[in-house]
């Protein structure tokens, strides 16, 4: 299996605080990889560095898009990174609240479409075809995450769990090969979490996407992950299969024995 994302020695400082301390991580094609750790461990910061929201202080972030040249993406703008094929969701939901559910997903298509101002005004054949395709693809994604009925609602009127799924659909609309999900199950009830669990696996199996996810819900993590990385205080303290992680004393200590055995 080929490696898609390769992070080496990633470090991020905020003033005096080292939020991420030389962390290495790999995601291979077709994998679901989880990044776990206690609150404040630096997981979200890690995502922010990989997706270009922050420029890392040190280390290398390399992407190997399938069929294309390897690229070092440290310090590139987030939109450029998304265009190379990595899309994310946010821990604190960041939808476009006053746009409809469908439009939210359509935004994700922006980097895969080309209509410019003049094209939009003339609305020629190509523009219309592209627009139709955008709508259709977006709608299919909504179906996939189970939000098709709500396509015309404003995003901020959705319940919490639906907003999380909408974020996933929006990220998928950018045609990524790697999807980065930041606590997708946060705030969901057990039923919703269970459905999410199935959804993520389905996305991986059908969508030809690999997944890197941050999650506190150990049941979900243990269920679906192929491999798990564990962070604490910015450092990587363990990595391995769910089975290995479950029995790793360092991890148990970090979590004070809670949850891991769920």
């Amino acid at each position, binding site marked *: 299996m080929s490696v898609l994302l390769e992070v080496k020695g990633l470090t991020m400082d*905020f003033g005096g605080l080292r939020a991420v301390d030389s962390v290495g991580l790999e995601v291979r094609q077709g994998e679901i990889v989880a990044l776990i750790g206690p609150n404040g461990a630096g997981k*979200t910061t890690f995502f922010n560095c990989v997706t270009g929201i922050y420029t890392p202080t040190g280390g290398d972030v390399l992407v190997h898009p399938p069929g294309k040249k390897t690229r070092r993406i440290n310090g590139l703008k987030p939109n450029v990174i998304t265009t190379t094929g990595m899309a994310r969701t946010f821990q604190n939901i960041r939808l476009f609240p006053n746009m409809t559910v469908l439009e939210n997903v359509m935004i994700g298509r922006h980097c895969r479409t080309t209509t410019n101002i003049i094209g939009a005004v003339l609305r020629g054949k190509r523009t219309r075809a592209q627009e139709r395709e955008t709508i259709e693809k977006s709608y299919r994604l909504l179906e996939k995450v189970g939000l098709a009925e709500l396509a015309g609602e404003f995003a901020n009127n959705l319940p919490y769990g639906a907003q999380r799924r909408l974020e996933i659909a929006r990220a998928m609309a950018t045609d990524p090969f790697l999807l980065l999900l930041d606590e997708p199950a946060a705030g969901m009830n057990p039923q919703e979490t269970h459905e999410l669990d199935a959804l993520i696996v389905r996305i991986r199996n059908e969508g030809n996407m690999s997944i890197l996810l941050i999650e506190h819900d150990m049941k979900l993590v243990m269920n679906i992950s192929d491999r798990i990385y564990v962070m604490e205080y910015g450092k990587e303290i363990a990595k391995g299969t769910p089975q290995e992680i479950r029995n790793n004393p360092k991890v148990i200590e970090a979590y004070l024995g809670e949850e891991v055995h769920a």
Partner: protein
Amino acid sequence: MDWAYFVELLCSGLVRGSIYALIALGYTMVYGIIQLINFAHGEIYMIGAFVALIVSGALTIYGFSGVSILVLAALIAAVYAAAYGITLERIAYRPLRGAPRLSPLISAIGASLFLQNYVLLAQTPDFLPFPALIPDFEFMEPIAHIVGSPELVILVVTTLTMIGLTVLIKHTKIGKAMRATQQDMIMARLTGVNVDRVISVTFVIGSVLAAIGGVLVGSYIGQINFYIGFMVGVKAFTAAVLGGIGNIPGAVIGALVLGLTEAFAAGYVSSAYEDVFAFGLLVLILIVRPAGILGKAVKQKV
């Protein structure tokens, strides 16, 4: 090089800068606490000047004289500026806490237009002569051609006010509460700070400083109208941004830099283009240091 001229420009720059500083502090303190550009702050300064003008005019007509007028006019102006400041916050800003950021900003612009035109309609659209409330000191006579008494008073009063403000913020209880609120409003509230009161006090302090500025400028320049607050407000805000918004020493430094830039541009280039230099400087600094001279660049948490 003509040194006398240079010194004259230097003084006039410092005077301007101190006035900007008095007003910029109001902008910066309010911004520090509620992240709002209080566009109507310049209008508070204008209202302060107007109240002082009316009080001093009435007192003169009723036979008062000398320093008693200056003191009374300044006091009443300060009281009224504070009252307007509090009312402004209550009506135009408080209902908008938590609204999208553009909303309070537009509300502030609306409030500014409203107050300008309120004074225009209630008083007059014309310039009014402002009495020279600041007396000419005898001991200043020898250097009066370079630094006049009003200039001296402005510099001294501004310096004293800054010292007072620093003491207030560093060493009093309310000052501590203000700093706490500035750092983290939610946390401050949780630890028992009455945030509404802190915000009101911030507006009061800012307004009083602006009123002091209004009285000083009025008697220095000698005339005022309803529109004087606008440009001075914009400049003072520019100064606050230059220094790093939310940063109190930054506001003073920004104001002095701006005042000096304008004075020298007016003196050596052309007074018509001084505003061009002021805004040019702003753009330049924002490009080089987006957070301002003393501001710290903070990464937004995502």
